[in-house]
């Protein structure tokens, strides 16, 4: 790993050390109680996923339309990290829902569309790994499709009638609807997004070394 990543690692470690304390000091919500504190890492995990989706989408578009092979590493890294943080959201959400709604899962628009989006990125990784020669373009098309669906998943709670809290919850929180909860949320969100960037960096390094190995194999066989 490059030495330039060291400050990023230090910042992420510091944020993850401070955030749990700040979350513990945040006020308890009136209707949901203590379990609402899952919000402080449930929403940031989706924010980190959206960051990774943006990277995957842009890199996939560059690979597809400009045919730049270097973008493949970023597309794969974005898709993989998106799956990781999506999984965190899909696990922490039902744990919250069990207490807040009394059920683990409801087939309502937000939850269903989020699950489908996660499956699209899993499909993208499967295509990239097992698709054989030329799979990078097929995976990029899948990644781009996944990125195109993401705004609909985000806005689903505002468009359809759902049990899931609306997107206005976060802006209202930052405006001070629940005094003392803005800072823990901001810290946690920043920590998760930086962690996603760090993990994508790590994954890009792996993809580049893998590409070097593949080139060497071709050279050696030729």
């Amino acid at each position, binding site marked *: 790993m490059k030495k330039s990543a060291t400050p990023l690692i230090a910042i992420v470690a510091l944020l993850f050390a401070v955030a749990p304390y700040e979350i513990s000091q945040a006020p308890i919500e009136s209707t949901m109680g203590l379990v609402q504190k899952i919000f402080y890492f449930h929403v940031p*995990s989706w924010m980190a996923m959206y960051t990774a989706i943006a990277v995957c989408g842009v890199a996939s578009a560059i690979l597809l339309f400009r045919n730049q092979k270097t973008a493949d590493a970023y597309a794969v890294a974005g898709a993989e990290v998106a799956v*990781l943080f999506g999984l965190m959201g899909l696990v922490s959400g039902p744990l919250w829902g069990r207490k807040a709604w009394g059920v683990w899962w409801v087939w309502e628009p937000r939850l269903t569309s989020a699950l489908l989006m996660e499956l699209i990125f899993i499909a993208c990784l499967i295509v990239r790994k097992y698709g054989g020669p030329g799979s990078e373009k097929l995976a990029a098309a899948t990644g781009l499709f996944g990125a195109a669906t993401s705004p609909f998943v985000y806005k689903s709670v505002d468009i359809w009638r759902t049990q899931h809290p609306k997107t206005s919850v976060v802006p209202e929180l930052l405006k001070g609807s629940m005094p003392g909860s803005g800072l823990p949320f901001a810290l946690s969100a920043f920590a998760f997004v930086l962690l996603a960037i760090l993990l994508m960096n790590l994954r890009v390094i792996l993809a580049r070394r893998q590409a070097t190995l593949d080139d060497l194999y071709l050279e050696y066989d030729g």
Partner: protein
Amino acid sequence: MRKTLAAAAFAILVAGSASARQPPAAQSEFVPAQPGAATEQLPAAPLLIAAYAFVWIATTGYVWTIARRLNKVEDDLRALEHKARPPR
């Protein structure tokens, strides 16, 4: 006539069950609890801890898989370079 009545009754039943299954309205903002108000019926701490633990386990597991894959690629690179080097 009987068929029309049966169809109408069926439509009313379906519409009634669909409206009965409508979820409650979504929250648009969070409101802090009043001091001393009873907020918990089910223990929330295990759910909160499980969610937080999962975040850490998933992150650690992912970093471990990257490290393992990177080590394998580096080993393969070294082996290939060794194989490609002409014998002295």
